[in-house]
């Protein structure tokens, strides 16, 4: 396995980032006025902190993402060897996916994917 392409790629990436940051630093204009630091230079002054409390629902969604992401890893392993494993592999992967599909149906029914406010479903 030749790793030269990887090394070249790495060097290009680093150079690109350095070039972008460096060029904008060199070429960009600089000014330090009274309102430069505010979020909206010519708009309404923002009020309060940007750190608002977020609903725990975000966390639930992140959790589902992680869990289904793991599923993707397994399916990735199957996709690579889909020809070698043949129909038995297909059946196994279908069994795996079927259980997870049941999970998705459950999540849907229980309202965990529901974003409406005041929804009558039971999940926060």
């Amino acid at each position, binding site marked *: 396995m030749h790793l030269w392409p990887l090394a070249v790629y790495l060097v290009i990436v680093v150079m690109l980032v350095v070039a972008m940051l460096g060029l904008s630093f060199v070429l960009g204009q600089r000014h330090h006025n009274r309102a430069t630091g505010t979020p909206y230079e010519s708009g309404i002054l923002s009020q309060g902190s940007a750190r608002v409390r977020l609903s725990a629902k975000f966390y639930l969604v992140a959790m589902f993402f992680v869990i289904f992401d793991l599923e993707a890893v397994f399916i990735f392993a199957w996709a690579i060897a889909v020809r070698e494993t043949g129909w038995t592999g297909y059946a196994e992967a279908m069994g795996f996916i079927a*259980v997870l599909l*049941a*999970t998705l*149906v*459950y999540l849907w*029914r*229980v*309202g965990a994917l529901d974003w409406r406010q005041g929804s009558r479903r*039971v999940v926060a």
Partner: protein
Amino acid sequence: MHLACILPEVILTLAGVLIMLVDPLLPRTASRKPTGWFSVLAMVAAFAASAWQLHLAPGTAYYGVVQTDAFSVFFHLLICGTVLVALLAAIDSVRPEAHDMGEFFALILLGTVGMLLMTSAVELLLVFIGLEISSISTYILAGFRRRSGKSIEASIKYFLLGSFATAFFLYGIALTFGATGTTRIAAIAAALPHTTTPILAWTAVGLILIGLGFKVSAAPFHVWTPDVYEGAPSPVVALMSTAPKAAAFAVLLRIFYGAYPSIQQHWWSLFWVLAAVSMTLGNLAALRQQSVKRMLAYSSIAHAGYLLVAFTSFSLQGIAAASFYALCYVAMNVGIFAVISHVGGYDDHLWSITDYRGLAYRSPVLCGAMAFFLLSLIGIPFTGGFFAKFYVFSAALQQGMFGLAIIGLINSGIAAFYYLRLLTALYSKPAQGSPVLAVPRMSITLGLAILLSASATLLLGVVPRSSLDLAQRGAGTLFQTGHPAQAAVQVVNDAPSQ
């Protein structure tokens, strides 16, 4: 044929998924009790399927990943029976109006799948996945009483320490693979004598022991136990203090006698220390407890210690004694927690030993059952607890472990103190002026749960023969994988005459 080997697991998985899918379809106000009844039915079916497996020829399935033999069937029956009692105790004592009961029962069923797989797996990766399934479901069940801060605290503590322990176990598997190049138990046993890196194997043994020591709450890995038992709802404690522990003990037996018999001289002393420390620490700490659940938590630590005594005896007898002890322990423990979940209430409004004063005057039947379980925990003859201790200590003495046997006997004496303290409280008159808290009427399901566990405890104490025979058959299959040469030696049965 393959499917027959995992039939109980398949039944429970299908039932669990079905409950999970049906539950959100039910009207919000509808009672969730039918899902409970359905899970009881599924558990009975799984029990029957396990019993049927006994008639199958012992063998492996799915490319040598699971093994059906007398050992796995013994623990299958034990776990299914225990979970059945816990389910019966839970149906009526958990808040009847709750809408998340479907999930409660689905989690119990799926967790049981994990425990069953742990006992029949002969591939460490499958053992690990089974352990994770059973652990994750118990973490969540422990926090099911979400209004109570204690319950959530219990769940978080259990989760954090539990995942830490699982990581130890996983690391042990990885090092085992490093030493032997395989994760199959029989292959490990075969490859171990020729390994070029014995140090990896020794480290692996230590790490696996730490991980599973946590799961069976053996001291010094026990710190989570009292807090979690106190905070978790009592019906859940009835489950988590019994079935997952029995499964973890089965895994310990399988790994240490199946995979690591050739380095037994390196690990038996670890079990010696673990057993001595668990017995002593558990009993001494239990003496000072005021809360009934905390006391029983420390008592369960001590019982894990008694059970570990059997591991120091490297014989068929030792394995059989350990399996039999696990059976007696789950029978009496699930019973006493079933009583507590009714008397104490779902919110644990009766929790201290003084609260239990005069229970005999309020509910003589429940009190009688509780007294019987306490006597069995002490180890009085004609209860399962007696024979369990008897076999464990005789196995240890046979191996010449006099020191450990003496520590164990002294501990049994200490333990009698705190069990008797609760027992006398039950039968003494309630204190003057204290409000008499009414115990609600016992439901049929709870009565059935208590009846089942009490009769199991009684039968194990009076006619232990048939279950002991099965335990010995199981021990035989386990011993063969690790020690083909010695398996031919027939072990003389020394059950005392009644």
